[in-house]
């Protein structure tokens, strides 16, 4: 099992969600996060004054999936979240040893 984590632009969330649903992914966790990558934030100029925006609002998506699906999930997220502009985000995976469904006590892939 793998945890797929993605940081994407907030307005791309619906596209990512739709793409994952088409793949048959039935659950995800979404968090509001802030940060910056290579873009190092940006500056805004408004009425002659320059505002520094260090941390950019992003959305973090966590999807728990089986090993056989992980590449498809990563690709679906990356494709759906792409605008081609700086700040589109990142997708990465981490191995997961155990999962328990709290309601039923099921473990492992059955709990996905």
């Amino acid at each position: 099992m793998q945890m797929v984590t993605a940081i994407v632009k907030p307005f791309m969330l619906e596209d990512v969600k739709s793409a994952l649903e088409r793949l048959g992914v039935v659950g995800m966790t979404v968090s509001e996060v802030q940060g910056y990558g290579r873009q190092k934030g940006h500056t805004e100029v408004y009425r002659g004054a320059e505002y520094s925006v260090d941390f950019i609002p992003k959305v973090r998506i966590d999807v728990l999936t089986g090993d056989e699906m992980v590449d498809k999930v990563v690709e679906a997220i990356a494709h759906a979240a792409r605008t081609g502009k700086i700040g589109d985000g990142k997708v990465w995976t981490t191995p997961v040893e155990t999962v328990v469904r709290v309601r039923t006590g099921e473990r492992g892939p059955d709990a996905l």
Partner: protein
Amino acid sequence: MAAASSGPDPSRSAEALLRARSRLLCPPHGSRRLGPEALRTALVDLHELWLSSRAADARIGPGTAVVALGGLARRDLVPHSGLDLLLVYDPRQSGLDPATSLRIGQALWGPLREPGIGGHHAVSTVGETVQAAISDPRDGMGLLAARAIAGDPDLVTHLIRVARNTWRDRLRSHFDELAAEIRARWAGAGNLAQRVEPELNNSHGGLRDIHLLNALATAELTEQPAAEVTQANALILDVRTELRRRSGRARDTLPAQDAEQVAHDLGLADRVELTRRLSDAGAAVASATAAALRAARPGLPRPTSAAAGRPSPCRRPDHGVIEHSGEITLDGHTRPGRDPVLILRVAATAARTRLPIDRGTLHRLAEQAPELRAPWPAAALAYLQTLLGSGPAMINVVQTLDVAGLWARLLPEWGAIRHLAPPDPAHVWTVDRHQLEVCAHAAALTARVSRPDLLLLGALLHDIGRGHPRRNPPTTHHCHHGALLTGQIGHRLGLSPADLAALTAMVRHHQLLPHTATNHNPTDPATAHHVVDTLDGDPILLELLHALTEADARGTAPRTWTTWRATLINDLVRHCQQAMPTAPPRDRHPSDQPGDGGFRRPGHLQGPSPLEELTHSTGSRFILDEAEEDGLRDSPPPRDGSTPT
């Protein structure tokens, strides 16, 4: 003389008690399922029988008694409750010493601890018990409902009489402490009437408030609680009983996910009906509790001094309205039947001075105050603005008016959202309370906008369309229906066409900024142009929606207005401001014209209502007529950046 006895096997006896409890909660297949009230009665009988048999085994005699406190004493024991018990003794009459009495107590309730039947258990003499009640008014209050389970009934009668007199005598010096504890409890658990997930026991309007009402009446400080409080007690207890039976644990907060099932268990249609009934009950209890606390203070024993008997000074904060004994009331010359603005004047004064409205005044207003004719006079609108601009103090005032039936006279549309459960689980308040919360937060933002009067009205009305039955959800979104209702209300309030248009636009588009900021690229020029076009290039409307968006988020739940959300919204607004036409339309907001100062503050104290000056403005758009077709204008721009059509 009482003595400890070996008796039957205590652990087996406790197991038998647990088995019997389980059978009551989960009857075997084919057995009748008890209703909530019958279940409570059965639980009380079961535990009384168990305790009586154990007391008999312990050979408790004269001068000793087993006393029930809490739910067992009140005969309203709900599932998974602990047992609050006291072994009280008179050392002279019983001949018991402390060590022996402790042994008897251990023999009585020791078996209860192993299987996890919680509660508080104590052993003390009558004197020690009364002393504890003196030092802690909560202990004293608990003793007022004490009940003998076994042993010497005369001892318990004596104890209760001494406890009641002592509690009443000592309450004067402890009253502020008790009131502070009650307020802290309310602050922690919230208001039962207006929480989506209400706390049934500790909240304002919950069961502990009813216990307080009963205690004050037992101490002869107030009247016995009214029938509506008794009915509320039964309903809240029924909900608590079914919640605990269903969840299988000692839970007192009704989660939204369980409300539907609990409603079904109680024979109600759905969770919406349950929420409304529970809210009505909570509002009745909260109102009675607030009134009882005010009434109890003057009834307390007073020290004899030169100050005693001196009438408290009266102040006259507004015409016909006086402040007396810490309450807002009417002066002797005021004729409520001849003054249609009086309700709002009293309400605005109460909110401004942060004082409660006297109950008698509410009754007089409810019986005699005439209807406000449409359009409202300017003074009525000005007092409404003062009320709305008072911040959090306004919430209690509006709730008080609503319980008295006065708020619905001013805003009949309120009835559709009163105690209505919101469809969105992010909300912690019912829809009516959410509107008031948003209004209170908007009052703190009035300095940021050119038209604070419109901001406050928009905050009050932004979700008024939620009460509309959702027969055709896609086309009758609550914003659309809210705009229609706002048109009616604004007309009744006497708003000018320009203000009416701006207000309906606020309600109609109050989700435009958060929706656009989270679903569309804020740096894309098409996004900003879409917003600007939707708002008809009106910078003041954008400014109002910006403030309303923040107030709406803050009034939804704690921590909803996050830095994350604020950054997105502020970025979008900044881009929209840059995309705005350089000169605002001059016919829309005459307050921006020279001579008016360009700023409107709520409240009659700042002079005549500026809205009155606007009744002659012309050339404004009237969004009410466009509300249905306007739905197309909220459609988002394409994400590829092309200009929306």
